[in-house]
């Protein structure tokens, strides 16, 4: 049996977020502890001789040697159940709204509030009946949590199997018993809607599957050129101001996932406020419901204690896994993983561990890899058979924008999609400032066949051609830089202009324009097709003697440049542009 015993010790030393305590030798690694009179939350991260080393999730100011330290005997865990959606938590799952109600506008140390409302009644609908055999992961009932979201109530992964003895329909709070199981050993086990799970341990599943379905996010440069799949992993590195957060917000808004868990890890307070104020007013393009209803926010802002930053991404991913286990597609977004790594570095420094590159601990790479490994498509535990997925997307904030630094490098080793943000593009206000030559997606081939099947049979061919035009542009620009535009042939001039059109009329996408913010796959296809059709016709006609100026000044190019402002409801008009192009070039 695990001992969940409470052990009491006292502070021996305090240095920043690290507290060293004595008298806790009966406690265990990663036990949750309460420090000082205010009961500041912390976690045991190392035990040496008689001493326990504790990282504390709140400011340690005012603590002194001799203050008591109580180990709860339990690991840092999250509460899971109905009520998570639409809520904003801090890095250790304290609900910020409840904190405000109790303590006002500033966060108070030692504040405690349950993550899930204890009073609220949810209508529970059983899906199994007395006499049915159930095991961990089985869905035993449902709660309609929002108009669109069915919260599936599962037997917790760490519960015993058995036979349902009693199960009730009706309004229950999360702590009330909704089902009683008789185990093989004859014991009674009561199931409640509330589950707890230790954040550092991945929730179990039956098996992992290869991801294949695209995660469509309505961002043209991403969906068309560097797509992500459900269950995949991606990173967005870039210097400050290059667009990491806006890109993350766009993904959170427009991706076709069922649930979004957004972790604001060591970044700005106002950015969380922005999401909080904006998401309830935006419609999920797939369900028409307010986006906030599918979102869970974890906010550990830059001025909050550094240790809680380390915990926040685990809190986030544990919540994501819980929704995955119900059979949903979840995206877990972390902005920024660099702040998490820095927290790791700071604690490691206080523990006087041997520093590795740039002071980061040697285990940085393995921790990062283990985190991203919690993403993926899985066959979920329990009955009925179902699949769920977690897509993990992390921003990286390299010092000075230098991509050779350890966190970027460690991340690139594990993730499959790399969106390289570049300040030069951001300066020109080319947004999203994703460099089309350096970025990559290892899922492109898998997604291409889906696009050809579901969108248009020549989509992937257009993507290839578009990319090769952009690559060719790069070479030609180098020539122009050395000897001037005169050195290029007419066909090369047409290619340059086409590349410019791809960049300006397709890749550039304004997140703040109501129409431009989101583009469906169908519209992306039509836009790209028109640009490339123009190119093909132009080259053809040039070869037949049409002069360059006439080609480049074709009035249809204005239509092409305005495609992005055509609302989704009117995209048939894009199909007509191809006509215009053809008639534009009708041989005289």
């Amino acid at each position, binding site marked *: 049996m695990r001992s969940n015993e409470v052990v009491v010790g006292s*502070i*021996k*030393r*305090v240095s920043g977020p690290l507290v060293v305590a004595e008298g806790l030798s009966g406690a265990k690694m990663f036990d949750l502890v309460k420090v000082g009179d205010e009961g500041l939350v912390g976690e045991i991260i190392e035990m040496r001789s008689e001493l326990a080393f504790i990282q504390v999730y709140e*400011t*340690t*100011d*005012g*603590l*002194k*040697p*001799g203050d008591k330290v109580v180990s709860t005997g339990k690991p840092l865990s999250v509460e899971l159940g109905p009520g998570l959606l639409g809520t*904003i938590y801090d890095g250790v799952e304290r609900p*910020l709204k409840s*904190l*405000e109600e109790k303590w006002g*506008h*500033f*966060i108070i140390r030692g504040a405690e509030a349950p993550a899930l409302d204890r009073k609220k009644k949810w209508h529970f609908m059983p899906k199994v009946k007395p006499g049915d055999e159930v095991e961990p992961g089985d869905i035993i009932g449902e709660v309609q949590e929002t108009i669109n979201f069915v919260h599936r109530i599962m037997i917790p992964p760490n519960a015993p199997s058995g036979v349902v003895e009693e199960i009730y329909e009706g309004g229950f709070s999360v702590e009330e018993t909704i089902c009683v199981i008789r185990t093989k050993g004859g014991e009674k086990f009561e199931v409640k809607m509330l589950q707890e799970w230790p954040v550092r341990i991945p929730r179990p599943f039956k098996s992992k599957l290869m991801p294949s379905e695209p995660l469509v996010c309505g961002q043209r440069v991403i969906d068309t050129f560097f797509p992500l799949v459900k269950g995949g992993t991606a990173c967005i590195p870039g*210097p*400050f*101001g290059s667009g990491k957060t806006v890109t993350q917000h766009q993904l959170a808004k427009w991706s076709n996932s069922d649930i979004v868990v957004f972790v604001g890890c*060591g970044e*700005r*307070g*106002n950015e*969380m*406020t*922005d999401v*909080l104020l904006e998401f309830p007013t935006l419609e999920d393009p797939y369900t028409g419901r307010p986006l906030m209803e599918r979102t869970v926010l974890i*906010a550990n*802002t*830059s*001025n*909050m204690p*550094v240790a809680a930053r380390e915990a926040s991404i685990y809190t986030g991913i544990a919540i994501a896994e819980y929704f995955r286990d119900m059979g949903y597609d979840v995206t877990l977004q972390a902005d920024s993983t660099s702040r998490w790594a*820095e927290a790791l*570095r*700071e604690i490691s*420094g206080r523990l006087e561990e041997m520093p590795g590159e*740039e*002071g980061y601990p040697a285990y940085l790479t393995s921790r990062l890899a283990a985190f991203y490994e919690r993403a993926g498509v899985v066959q979920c535990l329990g009955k009925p058979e179902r699949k769920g997925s977690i897509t993990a997307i992390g921003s990286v904030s390299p*010092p*000075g*924008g*230098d991509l050779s630094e350890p966190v970027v490098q460690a991340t690139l080793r594990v993730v499959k999609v790399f969106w390289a943000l570049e300040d030069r593009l*951001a300066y*020109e*206000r*080319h947004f999203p400032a994703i460099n089309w030559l350096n970025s990559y997606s290892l899922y492109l081939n898998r997604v291409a066949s889906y696009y050809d099947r579901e969108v248009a049979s020549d989509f992937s061919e257009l993507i290839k051609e578009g990319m090769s035009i952009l690559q060719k542009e790069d070479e030609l620009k180098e020539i*122009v830089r050395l*000897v*001037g*535009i*005169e050195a290029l042939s007419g066909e090369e001039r047409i290619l340059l202009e086409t590349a410019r059109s791809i960049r300006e009329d397709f890749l550039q996408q*304004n997140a*703040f324009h109501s129409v431009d913010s989101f583009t469906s796959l169908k519209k992306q296809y039509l836009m790209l097709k028109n640009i490339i059709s123009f190119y093909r016709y132009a080259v053809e006609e040039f070869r037949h003697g049409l002069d360059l100026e006439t080609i480049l000044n074709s009035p249809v*190019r204005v239509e092409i*440049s*305005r495609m992005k402002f055509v609302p989704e409801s009117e995209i048939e008009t894009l199909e007509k542009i191809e006509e215009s192009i053809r008639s534009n070039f009708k041989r005289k």
Partner: protein
Amino acid sequence: MYREFKSIRDIVGPLIFVEGVSDARLGELVEIDYGHKVGLGTVLETSSEYALVQSFESPQGLSPKVGKVRFRGKNLKIELSEELLGRALNGLGQPIDGAPLPPGEEERDINGGVINPFSRDYPTDFIQTGISAIDGLNPLVRGQKLPIFSGSGLPHQRIAAQIARQATVRGVQEPFAVVFAAMGITFEEASFFINVFEETGALSRAVLLINLANDPPIERIMTPRIALTIAEFLAFEKDMHVLVILTDMTYYCEALREVSAARREVPGRRGYPGYMYTDLATIYERAGRIKGKKGSITQIPILTMPEDDKTHPIPDLTGYITEGQIVLSRELHRKGIYPPIDILPSLSRLKEKGIGEGKTRKDHSPLSNQLFSAYARGIEARELLVVLGEAALTDVDKAYVKFAEEFEKSFISQGEYESRSIEQTLDIGWNLLRILPESEIKRIPPDILNEFFNSDKSEN
């Protein structure tokens, strides 16, 4: 809760290691008794056997034999009241204008609390500074933290002063205050600001915290915290719109580095401590608005980039925390352009919700996008021109070169005492765009383009 110890073991830089202390609180205020004078410090690390104290001044003249250390049982706090307006204090919040501190309505820990993100209100009120490069392209809003990234010898002070002088939220007259924190700057620089406040009649609404170049460097670590504690009181208890100017953050960061080096911590980039990001965040994040409160805190930190290098840890970490940055350019300065604001790397992250119809004008956002991209293209073309000569450029490229020149001359450049309305700024922008062929104007949705570009309304 006074406890006195004579057991000083080591003195290393600003750090004092006191043995035999078993109950010092982290962050506790400490008096350091030299025998002939008393200084202040704070507990950096505490254990059952010792306490590590950081002195706010250089411990010159402190002897382990004679010196005594007294633990005060509380953190550094400051007495707050509206009477602080019009007062001058040193970097530790002690008066330097001859009068005693006014009795406080309340006493607060200078570290402040963390604003609950759920309690924040998103800043959306456009502040007109009268400077086109800011208002038109990188607008400031109430509650924003927008630093100026400068270099030595560049006119950041004049720009900050111009902002302080001209800033208004149009159509409203509300109580305001200025909190000015000088860290490590010269007497002359500090006097310049004080004169500006005097000129505009803002001095009686200002609180000055002055830590000059010859004042103790470590004291600087406290100065912005005291400034912001006062600002929070005035904004959130007294309903004022507070402008906080912090200058120069570079000297603040150097003080942090000094302490870190004395502690022999593993240094981060260029010797600055690994926790500098978090430390700076606890300063910058104290800007903002709070739901249900009338006041606000707008921060304009100023920093000089060592070697004009934007990737240096001080501007780099600042840019990662603040809501944009105004970057000054030595090249524009050399060309004689004032204000020499390099608009391309400059950014205001809060602009989207602070501008547009009902706030400024509906063409503001698309127009600014177009100006940015046209200027970027113009600079690129100008470089080509320099290398390859005119023959290497297309006609369109030539138009862009002309645009960039004119843009610097008539949009960016303006008088130090010239305050342009936002309409004036935007109209200058439209006029400049007409240098380019219409087919180049791709950032602007058709409806706006028709209304503003094709009409001659803004020309007369």
